[in-house]
């Protein structure tokens, strides 16, 4: 039943070759386009590149490398595949419940509330937060900044369009998150799509920002960065947490994804966890 020894060795060397090819590919992307994936989770990158290779009909990763050096559109597609843009409205309703109960009172102490959603993908998270804070009476004081390093998703975020087939799920999420109105108050359905209320958009600015290389761009009362850090290696995570720390006002709020934490960060002690059940932290005064 064994795999013959010689075959096993061929497999080992194939995997070694793949590792080298991936490293070279990431180096090529960085040198050519400035996007730096070299400190991302290797297992994640390997999976995405394999998938892209499968779909692209190219012979091997080295061929992909050559193509992307000369073909910007090809690179854009690879970038799209490397950045997981999956998101939803009121994702993890329990998170939003805690925001309502424990974070709104903190935000309410500020005369002006700036909120940065880093790695916002198509923006569903901003629209959710805008709806929540509107219901909590903070709308007039708000300014949202949505950033991502992928222009394609930012374009969609600006449009504020959601697929109609997602509405049922989003409505359920909205209700579970403590929504006090009807979710249908916030969109207009048109065939397969639903347009989110223009009023919400007025409070939002979207811009390209790369967490690996770009700097602080203002003092925030809250930063939301969910399901982005899981794709980063330890050192890169640490850099980004420092960036967030530097961007927050004293007492400012940092929200991470439900399976992310500050556990391994050197800034762990500069924050306190606001609620035990959610990854919501407050920068110490």
């Amino acid at each position, binding site marked *: 039943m064994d795999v013959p*020894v010689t075959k096993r060795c061929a497999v080992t060397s194939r995997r070694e070759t793949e590792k080298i090819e991936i490293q070279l590919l990431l180096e090529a992307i960085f040198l050519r386009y400035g996007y730096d994936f070299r400190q991302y989770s290797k297992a994640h990158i390997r999976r995405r590149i394999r998938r892209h290779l499968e779909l692209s009909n190219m012979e091997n990763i080295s061929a992909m490398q050559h193509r992307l050096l000369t073909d910007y559109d090809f690179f854009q597609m690879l970038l799209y595949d490397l950045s997981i843009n999956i998101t939803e409205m009121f994702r993890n309703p329990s998170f939003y419940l805690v925001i309502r109960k424990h974070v709104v009172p903190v935000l309410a102490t500020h005369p002006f509330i700036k909120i940065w959603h880093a790695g916002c993908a198509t923006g569903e998270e901003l629209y959710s937060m805008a709806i929540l804070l509107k219901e909590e009476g903070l709308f007039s004081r708000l300014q949202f900044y949505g950033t991502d390093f992928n222009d394609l998703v930012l374009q969609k975020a600006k449009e504020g369009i959601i697929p109609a087939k997602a509405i049922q799920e989003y409505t359920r999420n909205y209700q579970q998150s403590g929504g006090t109105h009807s979710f249908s108050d916030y969109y207009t359905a048109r065939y397969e799509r639903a347009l989110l209320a223009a009023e919400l958009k007025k409070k939002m600015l979207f811009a390209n920002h790369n967490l690996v290389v770009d700097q602080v761009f203002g003092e925030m009362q809250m930063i939301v960065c969910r399901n982005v850090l899981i794709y980063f290696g330890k050192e890169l995570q640490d850099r980004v947490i420092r960036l967030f720390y530097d961007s927050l006002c004293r007492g400012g709020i940092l929200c991470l994804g439900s399976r992310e934490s500050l556990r391994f960060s050197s800034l762990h002690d500069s924050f306190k966890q606001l609620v035990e059940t959610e990854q919501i932290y407050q920068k110490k005064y």
Partner: protein
Amino acid sequence: MAQHHTPHPQKTHYQAIAMGVSFGGLHSLQTILPKLPATFPVPIMAVQHHDPNGDDFLARHLNSLCAVRVKVAEEKETATAGTVYLAPANYHLLVEDDHTLSLSSDEKVNFSRPSIDVLFESCADVYGESLIGVILTGANSDGSKGMQMIKEVGGLSVVQDPQTAEAATMPESAIAATEIDHILPLTEIAAFLLTIVNPAAKNTSKTNTSCDTL
């Protein structure tokens, strides 16, 4: 094959177990895991398909029954012996080259997140022939492709005998997809794993010949 049959009794050949289970999983895990001692010499990474809104109940429940530690996998923690890591609801579980764990919210695979295929593929990359893949009961075919990859890199494949499974589809599908080294009734899986990862036990199931010795 016979000339390779030199057992290496000093070191256990295996470094990790990747386990996949779906419908009927609670019963299977409850049958296997409590039989493993706290000193179990390798980590177990497991995907159990469950309710996306489910909490960490399963891990806590199993942990209370077991001598090995059972917990929900946290990103960046290192996979350690004597511990069972369950993929959290709604995240894929992967292993890095340095044996730390990663989570990902990539699209579903086989309509599942976590997906067994995703876990098995990354474990196969990292552990190669030192990996044991285990497919238990389930009503879909997630894990079959992953098991194929484990066999490709020379790992060991173990499948629960479909006749002893609440749902036979998943084990049957794995059996159809690739060569399976051991098809075992549910009640015998724990004892088998114990023997095979125990350094003192004779390695009877497969050879230890590696590239270097050729």
